[in-house]
């Protein structure tokens, strides 16, 4: 996990985009894309995790705690679901 984060950070010099689960505590980013099983994706979007919103990592891990607009959610994705975010410095 730590290795992955390092790799993502290195590549983030080129693009700022990285998978959501690689955010560290307190980091935030804008959701670019929610990808995976259409039924799960629409459910995520309905509760507020859709492209354009700013998410903040409260507690990384599996499950993690995220904050969107002051509202906290607990998420654990399966392998097929990927959320990409643009890191906000």
């Amino acid at each position, binding site marked *: 996990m730590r290795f992955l984060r390092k790799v993502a950070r290195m590549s983030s010099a080129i693009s700022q985009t990285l998978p959501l689960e690689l955010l560290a505590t307190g980091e935030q980013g804008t959701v670019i894309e929610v990808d995976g099983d259409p039924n799960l994706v629409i459910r995520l979007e309905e509760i507020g995790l*859709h492209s354009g919103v700013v998410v903040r990592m409260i507690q990384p891990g599996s499950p993690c*705690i995220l904050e969107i607009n002051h509202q906290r959610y607990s998420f654990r994705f*399966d392998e097929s679901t990927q959320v990409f975010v643009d890191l906000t410095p």
Partner: protein
Amino acid sequence: MVEKVPSQHLARTVAVIGNPNTGKSTLFSALTGVHSRIGNYPGVTVEKKLGWFEFEGQSVRLVDLPGTYSLSPRSIDEMVSVDVLLGRQPDVGPIDAVVCITDASNLERNLYVVSQVLDLGLPTVLVLNMWDVAVDRGIQIDPVELARRLEIAVIPCEAHRRRQLDEVRRGIIQACQLPQRTPPDLFPQTFHEEARQLQTAFQQFGNQNLPIYLIERLLLDVGGQLETALTKPNPAELLTRLKAARERLATAGCRVPGIEAKLRYGWIKQLMQGVMTVPDKRPATVTDTLDRWLTHKFWGLLAFCLTMFLVFQSISTVAEPLMKFFEVGQKQVGGWVGSLLAPGPLRSLIVDGVIAGVGGILVFLPQICLLFLFIALLEDCGYMARAAFLMDKLMTKVGLSGKSFVPLMSSFACAIPGIMATRTIENRRDRMVTILIAPLMSCSARAPVYWLMVAAFFPTVSWAGGWVTLHAIMMFVMTFFGAVVAIPIAWLLKKTLFKSETPPFVMELPAYKWPSPGIVLHRVFDRASAFVLRAGTLILATSILIWSASYFPSDHRAEQQVLVQIQQAEDQFSSQLEQKSQLRSRRELLLEDQPVPVQSAAESSAPIEALAAQLAELDAQLAELDTQLQPLHELFETRNQISERLLADSYLGRFGKWIEPVVKPLGWDWRIGVGVLASFPAREVIVATLGTIYSLGGDVDENSQGLQSALKSATWPDGRPVYSIPVAMSIMVFFALCAQCASTLMVIRRETNHWGWALFTFVYMTLLAYIGAWIAFNATGWLMTFSGNS
């Protein structure tokens, strides 16, 4: 509280909808006060909550719909909500207006479902609840501008402080007078065309009256409830057409289901531009601090265990004296009623059947209320979602997700709402496993059995200055025993019958808040009245049945003669009896006041010696009285012998002897065996049954107070006591694991749509209970001899 809801024709009907955790229930009860009624929609187990209020001469019926993030019907709950809004739910009728309740501090996400409601074209009121929270966070919203853009009433409100309620009421009344609205059109023309074509197709197959709204939802919701519900006339043909329509939409750049979120959030973004400003800086909140500890990998789990333990410790601390008080009361009522009636079958039925049976279970009402109170408090303050988060890690180990935790946790109060709460689990296999293990969670009906056994057979030991007691520890252990056993069962089920991947887990963690007393008390009241109702119906009926089986066919004349003699003797010795009870209570008071012995302090020995002297004097007086009361004791002895024989000769006794070989390996005598068998319809019946059996079957003297002492003095024919710690353990383990609740099995059948699963649950749990009780009996017995020898 049960008043007539104003009829449809006189009152306007208004539906209330909104996201979960927006204070919807608080607003609903604030608006309607005590005028509410909870029931079920016909044919489904979705809770129907109706309320009503009158304002400025107009009466309004409110229909509270289940909290939801979206109107796309993926579950039965959401399907009912859509039907109500479309006026397709016959017992609700047409809807005059909709109230959308939103959390002002998180408005954008809340507007998603609002935009779906607006598509219905009904007059709508938008309530911005939790306005104070939004203000605290520095969020600024311009409700006037928002109302102008949406062309509906927008009302800020603080439901938990009961502020702005009249404005909400006025808004609702005014909305009811308004005509239908033209909905904002978010979808492209191609989408509407496809919907119309599909509507024509449905008309061809005889489904004439489908509103275009439902057809649009059908197009959008891939794999939703509507796909099975609407295509019934000709599933193959209609589903093919539906699929083709979706494919055409995708090529036109309108891919379902993704398009809906994109369009709606785009609309919301545009709508909110210039209406709402959110500060860049995020203020630290109490929730931040609390979550840092309560969701921590180590401290969070510790806090969870501590919370659970505190709950059980306080229940046992507060409730044990109350329970004693109730037991004395029960005995006195029995005595009083007994003195009014002549000895005979009627007196026996009322005293031994009804008072000893039903009264025996009502004694536990304080504990039940406290247990429900704690569960309601934990749910309402927002902690339950954190507990689910913590448990997700453990749940994934057996292949389930944290989602299953909340239904399982509420099964600790009662498995029925717990099993119904599994509807929030989308994954069918996960839901099945959760349903099948939910009855293993220790429900409130098991608690009386534990309390009875623990209070009667475990010594009163306490540590840490009385803060931690052995009774509370035993209660805690027994309560979580079923949950521990559920772990391997769930793992096994997930590996065999319901093989599937661990599902993803998504859950909202609401901000912590002070529990609302109204909601908490309402929930406690609901559950407590259900408990009393059960005691008054099912348990009363079983008690009477057990009483008749244990009273007949024997000849009770000899016993009645003795009872008459006892009554005469009691009148004769009344002064001695009174003196004796006074002496006994003085003795108990002395023992209770005894200071904690401090070995190092020499001066403390003097008061102890004085106490011993006082005690000795009291004991001497008691012994003197007992010799005077000897004739009465002899009468009791005779009565007990006769009763014992009569009970053994009764139908119940014969049946009990017949089944004794089966229950003997568990350390039980035939009475326990009969009690357990009688409690298969509802497990708390065991307390009532034992109450009746022991009240009829002797083992009582003038000091007997309730069931506890009766159990303590019960003996085998050879004089050994029946109950010991191993027997108590064996009974408790059996009750922890057995499926003794007809209502739960019915709910399992209804929720799984198959009798097979109810039968499966019954068989596996009963087998588990028998084996578990056998192990508990032998292991505890072995442990006790082992520790006794060493």
